[in-house]
């Protein structure tokens, strides 16, 4: 059975099914006991599992470390931080303890833990509440890092993350919380380490992930009107990155665009372009293009954020210019620019 549910519903459903499936799963974090806690992803879980869902002191380092300690002794904790910036208090536990534990103790020392960190844009959140820090987590050996791009992906990836024996950083683009999709009621699993095609096309390969997918899809529809078909790849995982579809698609289209909804320096798009150039330079008919936010903190005023994030119109314009086609003048509404999408999508 499928039905249309939101991104946050999908996370709640995966949490619930994980807790039903495995009695060792616990959930900890600030406010996870409230019905509207953890951005509305908890529901009645506290009532149903009073000993396995608990609110914590405002001590992110400790909370994160307690999760690690519980994971190495047999539980499967989900640790929730409502902003990646809050999670940074516990960064030692994520990158130096959890990520290294199995390796530094010679193997056979699993750390089955999920760090749910909310990342990225949301109106009014400003420089200290909108970072994504993908590059930071992508760089850490020993972590698995996934970014769900739709409700279907959120549910299937969280189920897999909880079942995995490694520390999984689950970066939730807050921008997508209201997004809806037709999602299976089943307890299904999406592989943590496989990129996927979101659309098939022949003119250009667009590599993105997370909230980049929504704008990429909107641009894809617009471009179809002009007879241009782009192939959108959702990376799904940025640690490690699965290049199989990227190489396959670029070999076919000869053109690569990477879209990051965060600042430019050391970002995922740059990494993908470097790998493609070093392996498939001879297949490229046009220099790879990167779309990203500038290397400045994300401001708060809408008159500034309007120019911060790349938009669906920017993607469309760039694709058309690469292909040497006439540009389309697209006018974006205030909602397009500043409010998170409350639409139903189909990425399957």
């Amino acid at each position, binding site marked *: 059975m499928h039905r249309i549910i939101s991104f946050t519903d999908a996370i709640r459903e995966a949490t619930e099914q994980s807790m039903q499936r495995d009695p060792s799963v616990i959930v900890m974090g600030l406010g996870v006991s409230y019905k509207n806690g953890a951005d509305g992803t908890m529901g009645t879980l506290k009532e149903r599992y009073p000993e396995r869902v608990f609110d914590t002191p405002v001590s992110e380092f400790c909370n994160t*470390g*307690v999760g690690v300690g*519980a994971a190495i*002794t047999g539980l499967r904790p989900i640790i929730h931080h409502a902003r990646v910036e809050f999670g940074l208090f516990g960064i030692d536990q994520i990158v130096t*303890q959890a990520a290294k534990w199995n*390796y530094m*103790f*010679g193997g056979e020392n699993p750390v089955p833990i999920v760090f749910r960190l909310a990342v990225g844009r949301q109106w009014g959140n400003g420089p200290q509440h909108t970072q994504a820090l993908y590059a930071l987590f992508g760089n850490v050996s020993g972590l698995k890092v996934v970014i769900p791009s739709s409700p279907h992906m959120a549910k299937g990836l969280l189920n897999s993350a909880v079942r995995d024996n490694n520390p999984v950083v689950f970066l939730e683009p807050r921008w997508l919380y209201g997004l809806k999709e037709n999602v299976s009621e089943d307890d299904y699993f999406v592989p943590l380490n496989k990129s996927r095609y979101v659309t098939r096309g022949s003119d250009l390969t667009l590599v993105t992930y997370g909230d980049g997918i929504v704008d990429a899809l909107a641009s894809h529809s617009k471009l179809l009107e002009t007879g241009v078909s782009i192939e959108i790849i959702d990376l799904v995982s940025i640690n490690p990155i699965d290049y199989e579809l990227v190489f396959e698609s670029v070999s076919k289209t000869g053109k690569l665009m990477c879209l990051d909804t965060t600042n430019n320096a050391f970002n995922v798009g740059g990494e993908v372009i470097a790998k493609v150039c070093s392996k498939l330079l001879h297949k490229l008919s046009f220099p790879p293009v990167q779309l990203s936010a500038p290397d400045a903190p994300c401001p708060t005023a809408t008159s500034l954020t309007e120019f911060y994030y790349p938009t669906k119109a920017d993607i469309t314009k760039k694709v058309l210019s690469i292909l040497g086609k006439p540009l389309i003048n697209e006018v974006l509404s205030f909602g397009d620019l500043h409010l998170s999408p409350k639409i139903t999508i189909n990425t399957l």
Partner: protein
Amino acid sequence: MTLDQLLAAYRKMFLIRRIEEALVKYYFDNKIMSFVHFYVGQEAVAVGVCQNLDLGDKVLGNHRSHGHYLAKGGDPKKMVAELLGRATGCCRGKGGSMHMIDKSVNFIGSTPILGSVAPISAGSALTQKLTKSKNITVSFFGDGASEEGCVYETLNFSALFKLPLLLVVENNLYSVNSKLTDRRSSEHNLSKIVEGFGLNYYKADGNDYIDVSRKAKAAIDSVKNTETPSVLECITFRHMAHSAPICDDKIGYREIDTPETRKKEDSLFKIRTLILDGGTLEESLLEIEAEIEKEVSETILYAENSPFPEKEELMKDVYHA
């Protein structure tokens, strides 16, 4: 305390002391290419605490954990092999001196980022509580680590959730070469801090096995029976430098623990004297010492004859299957 207990403690303390002393030359011969922090002087703390624990109780340590590992019953051969970077080491050569682990005796890991072990040990205690285990978790860390914010957070967290947790603060007076007075006001009072968070506080002379053992027993009983986590602070002397097996008195930072005082207050010397004063013949101790010396030699020989990890090991176990 029975004579058997005392002799068992002496045997363990002597092993910890001699195994490290025997390893000094391997360090200077570049055979130990692992950062080392020797435990010499502090043996009464590890042994005094661990001898009061059950096999099922879990222990975690810090960067200076050879003593904690051995006191909990960790395999000496795997420890020395790890220091020499061998495939037979407790981490197959991947961890080195700062990462001791022997899960067969529930020594579940040591990790050198100061203070980090406190919340990890609270997580282990949380597992014990949620699974209704009768066992407790103990972590060892120093006075320096006890100044990290996450330790205060852990005091609060463990008191809130009534975790079966004992935090042992080994106060050896220095963080590297920084004195307590460099780092704390004269009003600093750990017992008030700990009790203010709702935990029990115990203090022991960390150079005195009897005192550590007695206070550790009280603390462990309280953790097991009253659902109140505890802190045991042991004041002890680190005989060697922070890192590297050398005596560093010439630097001049030591005020209380001068060579004369260290010798007088040496935990091993004190327990030995105590046993002899109780009427035990020195011959019995010499016999124990000879046995340990033999064990140490065999242990080092085992490690030296062990293979180095193969190149394939480099990329193995980045992830668990």
